[in-house]
């Protein structure tokens, strides 16, 4: 799956989870950029991303991801 597709699908997930159509995510987006993205909603986001791409993050990956770019890289390596 190419990066463009991954970002466009990620963008849709972010908009659904945070119920905000003005969100546009890029590689550098972090929790600081999105108002409702706190530790409680992080788990909602992870769950929704996993569903979108039909994959599972490993426990270590979830705690070490620093931005959306790293999330997209993991997805790219896992999804054909």
């Amino acid at each position, binding site marked *: 799956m190419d990066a463009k597709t991954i970002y466009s699908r990620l963008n849709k997930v972010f908009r659904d989870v945070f119920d905000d159509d003005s969100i546009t995510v890029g590689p550098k987006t972090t929790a600081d950029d999105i108002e409702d993205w706190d530790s*409680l909603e992080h*788990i909602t986001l992870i769950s929704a991303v996993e569903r979108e791409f039909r994959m599972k993050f490993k426990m270590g990956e979830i705690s070490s991801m620093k931005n959306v770019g790293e999330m997209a890289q993991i997805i790219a390596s896992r999804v054909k």
Partner: protein
Amino acid sequence: MKELEYPFDSEYIIKKKKSIKRSLLADGSKRLKKKVAVFGGSTTNAIVDYLELFLLDQGIEPEFYQSEYAQYWQDAMFPGEELLSFSPDIVFIHTTSRNITAFPTTSDTKETVDKLLDAEYSKYVQMWQKIRETYHCPIIQNNFEMPYYRLMGNKDCSDYRGRLNFASRLNDRFYSYADENEGFYINDINFISASYGLRRWSDPSYWNMYKYAMCFEAIPEFSFNLSNIIKSVFGKNKKVLALDLDNTLWGGVVGDDGVDGIQIGQETGVSQSYYEFQSYVSSLRSLGVVLTVCSKNEHENAIDGLNHPEGALRPDDFIIIKANWENKDRNIIETAAELNVLPDSIVFADDNPAEREIVRAQIPGIAVPEMDSVENYIINLDRGGYFEVTSFSADDLKRNEMYKANAERAAAVASFADYNEYLLSLDMNAVIDDFIPVYLQRITQLTNKSNQFNVTTKRYTTAEMEAVAQSDEYIRLYGKLADKFGDNGVVSVVIGHKNGDVLDMELWLMSCRVLKRDMEFAMLDRLVERCREQGISKIKGYYYPTAKNKMVKDLYGKFGFEKLSEDEDGNSVWELSVSDYEIRNKVIKVGDNSSVK
């Protein structure tokens, strides 16, 4: 909302949580407001988020209090100012196997393990009693899901040192407590986790990363199960199951295939599946669920199908059989009117998606479970939680007989020229008196489910009703009505609060199954009699309009009260001086508690 009805897509609900909530709140429906305190032994935020969605969908608007992380015991035993002023209508204790403090070890003796069990259990009992004394409200307590690993393997479940054995024994203690205490309900996560799949349910990464006691994707199912208890406690259960026939209660089309051609019985896998479903429906009937038929068929064919010798149901099991070629939504509206229930208290089961869609669109609030294939019928109806049992009164068991007698009465009325003559012919006998313990559960249940003949729509929990029953500040009456066709049980409840020589009416309700029988006048006669005995000179009545109680807008006027005021919302205040009152009921013989065996 279809997205929240079983079987729902949990992952979709997780992703769309915010927009689902937005559209529920925007649908303009009136909801019962309830305060729910959640005492957690693990993270509860998502549990509350999804619980809110399901409750909103079931007509309840919750306000939540959540204890700080894992502070369930401290919050229960030593409540802070915030919690005390929150004053919950219901308390939910969210503990799981993760909260069992001392599991047995392999070196423990039997006696040591028994002591561990006592210690663990008494911690909970203390907490439940403290909650009950402080808030007088219902309590929902999780049982324990089975631990996800087994040190001893299979022996873990049977050996007293086993963790599974210990959790099961704790559960048994909880069940005994639930059996002995009203207003205490078990949220059966042992079942739900097994049904979900214990391995996925207890994925330890969710505990280790977020302190959730179950995997995140299981939370909607958990919360839905919990919401069913809450909505049942607050009187939002369904009452009637309206069933289609062809390909719903049997395989095939009786009009085309003939009685001998339909699939029901023990012959094939398919016919056995339909037989199992009929047996399930028959069991629902014995729980007090009212059964009706809503089918596009010739009436005669429908009866023939129901008389199939291999079937588990008989035509007599159905209070109303609508087998005709009318639109189904119209048949359902008529069924509701004939049973004197609201259309939103009906569950409609039909294999045809087009029929389901029409009924769902035409009748707001009606439940229309997916009935896609016969092997799923039972699970979809059962897991939907439409008829969740939280209290079980003798009247529930007799409900079908009562509705049947009602239908016979309707047939009898046609043969009388004069309505009064008809009423006299019913040979009605009532008991109207102060509350007695044997009826308290039914009385409370009535206050929570009567919507139409109910002037204030005040709801009472079991604990609140016990407090009212024991106080000398109230005049209370329950009314029970029997006639030659059958016993209707307790059908009316009246509660007035004494205020000097004035009685302020807090509640006046009656079950719609005894409308137009003059029972309300018999209640009023007795109330005035009690007022005179206790030195009350004036009765003040209050009417608070809701979407459903228009039929009693002028009840107090009909009683001869004088209207004192009415505000722009339609709330009105009425007054009656008891000195000039004359007996109104002339058709019901009325006895008191001494006639209750």
